[in-house]
């Protein structure tokens, strides 16, 4: 070895142990050789290792460096509970020009006019003649328009890729989705609710298929909106609201507030159209509150089904006189007070149960607090600061307290589903959150309320909401609107809150019509039974098959037994 490297040899014999210098040189050479060998062995081992490694385990950061230029969209697609798209971002091209490079302005404008519509032609023509470097011509062109303009080949005009939020369903989800502003940030409704989530997730998951899924059902929403539109037109009302909610999971299946607006054209919407009558507007809901009053009676007032109430004389409380209209008989039992919607009887039940308990129950049902809901447009209930005996009585039949329709639906659902209250939600619920609830009434009370609600539809004021086979139950409401300290008896809010099927309630439906005007069909009446109840019936008829609820034989022995009702007859 030494011979080979040193030809002008220090050593004569080629032996490493010849002298000290040779020894040192020898050692150095050997050291370096060994070191290089080790290095090469290490490289060989590493190569073998790398060549056998599984490709998928390579560092994720490699993928990201290659793909940062291929981000799809900055805002995820929102879908309904069945995967139908209700809000989506699409790439559009926006046309701009560099006036310094535009040769003939008039010719360019003339050519462009053939392809697309240009607003503010004069302004743009002036800007094109100026010495700027950037002028917007028109934003958010369709692919076809982009193709046409490209075909023209005019110098000085360029495209910039932008995104635009498109709502394929136009009017159908106006108040739920809210809207986005020009920069694509959500400013109202669910779009605003998801704004934070979108910022966090949009960079990590742009290859995942996770889409924010709402609890609404596009088919149910369509049915509800159509029926509500019909009733609003028929009675020439100023507004209407409808909500369909799952009674057990408190998911909102449908929420419509009319008049509404096209989400794609939000600039043209008036503030009346943007006003959310379902969750933001507060109204005195009237007799629908009798549901809560009966719950109060059964739960805290030791009310029995056969307690009797004398309705022959109007009830005088301070300076108020409470009357009943068109009642069939003067003495009714507790159930009939509800079924035939007697105000005097209702006041009697409230007094029997006590005003503190009433306040306690209404608070527990969430009727005194602002809603907890994902959208920002939430109304705060109005009720008098001094909750005296008068307020107690008027609140029992729904006057003197103003809440949103969403409050009423949520509270009703919590009473009839066995007594459990959860937060209403627009997001599709996964079944993991079962323990987050409060109990508002006992199961026994819930059963009784279920039964009297069914009786109210079968025999009482809610007959027009009945759909054979679906065991519809509910309560009508006709509330005169307040006007300067009194009540305007000529305009009212006509409502009906119903649920089906009443042997095991699945869904709650509420319809509210604001200031209906009576017509021939209703003989001039605008009560809840004539205006709102039929709408609920039509809605239930159409949505029950969609929601997989099959009709039952209402003459079935067990069902008849469960909902058996005998009118009270005084013994002779």
């Amino acid at each position, binding site marked *: *070895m030494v011979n080979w490297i040193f030809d002008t040899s220090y050593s004569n014999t080629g032996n490493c142990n010849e002298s000290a210098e040779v020894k040192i040189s020898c050692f150095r050479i050997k050291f370096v050789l060994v070191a290089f060998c080790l290095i090469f062995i290490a490289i*060989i081992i590493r190569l073998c290792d790398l060549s056998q490694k599984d490709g998928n385990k390579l560092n994720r950061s490699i*993928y990201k460096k290659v793909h940062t230029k291929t981000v799809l969209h900055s805002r995820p697609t929102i879908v309904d509970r069945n995967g139908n*798209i209700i809000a*989506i971002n699409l790439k559009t091209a926006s046309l701009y020009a560099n006036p310094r490079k535009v040769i003939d302005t008039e010719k360019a404008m003339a050519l462009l006019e053939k392809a697309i519509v240009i607003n503010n032609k004069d302004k743009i023509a002036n800007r094109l003649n100026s010495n700027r470097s950037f002028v917007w011509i028109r934003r958010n062109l369709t692919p076809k328009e982009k193709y046409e303009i490209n075909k023209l080949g005019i110098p000085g005009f360029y495209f910039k890729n932008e995104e635009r939020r498109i709502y394929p369903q136009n009017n159908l989800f106006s108040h739920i989705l809210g809207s986005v502003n020009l920069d694509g940030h959500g400013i109202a409704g669910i779009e605003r609710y998801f704004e934070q989530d979108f910022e966090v997730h949009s960079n990590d998951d742009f290859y995942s298929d996770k889409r924010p899924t709402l609890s609404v059902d596009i088919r149910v929403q369509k049915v509800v909106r159509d029926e509500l539109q019909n009733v609003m037109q028929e009675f020439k009302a100023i507004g209407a609201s409808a909500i369909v909610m799952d009674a057990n999971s408190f998911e909102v299946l449908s929420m419509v507030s009319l008049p509404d607006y096209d989400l794609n054209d939000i600039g043209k919407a008036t503030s009346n159209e943007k006003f959310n009558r379902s969750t933001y507007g507060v109204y005195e809901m009237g007799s629908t509150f009798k549901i809560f009053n009966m719950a109060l009676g059964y739960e805290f007032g030791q009310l029995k089904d056969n307690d009797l109430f004398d309705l022959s004389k109007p009830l005088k409380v301070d300076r108020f006189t409470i009357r009943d209209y068109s009642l069939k008989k003067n003495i009714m039992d507790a159930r009939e007070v509800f079924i035939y919607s007697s105000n005097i009887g209702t006041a009697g039940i409230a007094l029997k149960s006590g005003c503190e308990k009433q306040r306690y129950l209404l608070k527990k049902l969430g009727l005194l607090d602002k809603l907890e809901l994902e959208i920002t447009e939430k109304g705060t209930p109005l009720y008098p600061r001094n909750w005296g005996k008068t307020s107690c009585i008027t609140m029992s039949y729904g006057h003197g307290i103003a809440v949103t329709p969403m409050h009423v639906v949520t509270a009703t659902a919590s009473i009839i589903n066995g007594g459990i209250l959860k937060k209403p939600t627009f997001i599709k619920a996964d079944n993991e959150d079962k323990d987050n609830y409060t109990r508002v009434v006992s199961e026994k009370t819930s059963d009784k309320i279920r039964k009297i609600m069914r009786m109210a539809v079968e025999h009482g004021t809610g007959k027009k909401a009945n759909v054979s086979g*679906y065991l519809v139950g509910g309560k009508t409401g006709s509330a005169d609107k307040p006007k300067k300290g009194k009540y305007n008896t000529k305009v009212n809010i006509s409502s009906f809150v119903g649920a089906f099927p009443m042997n095991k309630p699945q869904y709650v439906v509420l319809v509210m019509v604001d200031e209906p005007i009576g017509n021939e069909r209703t003989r001039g009446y605008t009560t809840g039974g004539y205006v709102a109840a039929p709408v609920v019936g039509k809605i239930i008829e159409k949505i029950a098959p969609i929601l997989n609820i099959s009709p039952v034989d209402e003459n079935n022995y067990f069902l008849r037994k469960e909902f058996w009702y005998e009118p009270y007859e005084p013994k002779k």
Partner: protein
Amino acid sequence: MKNNLNIIIASMLVLTISGLFYVKDQVKYLKQDLAEINRQIADSKMQIHVLEAEWQYLNNPERIRNLSENYLDLKPVNVSQYSDPENFNPVNMAILQQTNNTPTIASIYPNLKPVFISY
């Protein structure tokens, strides 16, 4: 012996170096392929996205309703036309056939007396 060792080591060296360059080239080609495929994936995803929007637009309930009214000879279904699968098990079918219409209490449960009806 020493020459052989030299030759072996030298050839290992050459092999290692050439192997390294070979692997490096392979990686480069693979990376290019990967980038190209990913670009195609992104392109396809974009197209799918636009098509999904198109499909949803065509599935607008109002549009479907208009089409079905104009071209289909069908009417909305009545409640009485729906039934529960339970009704089609042999026992219930036999009962329904016997009575020809909605069975009354007496026909289904002949042994039960309707005790809750009492005046």
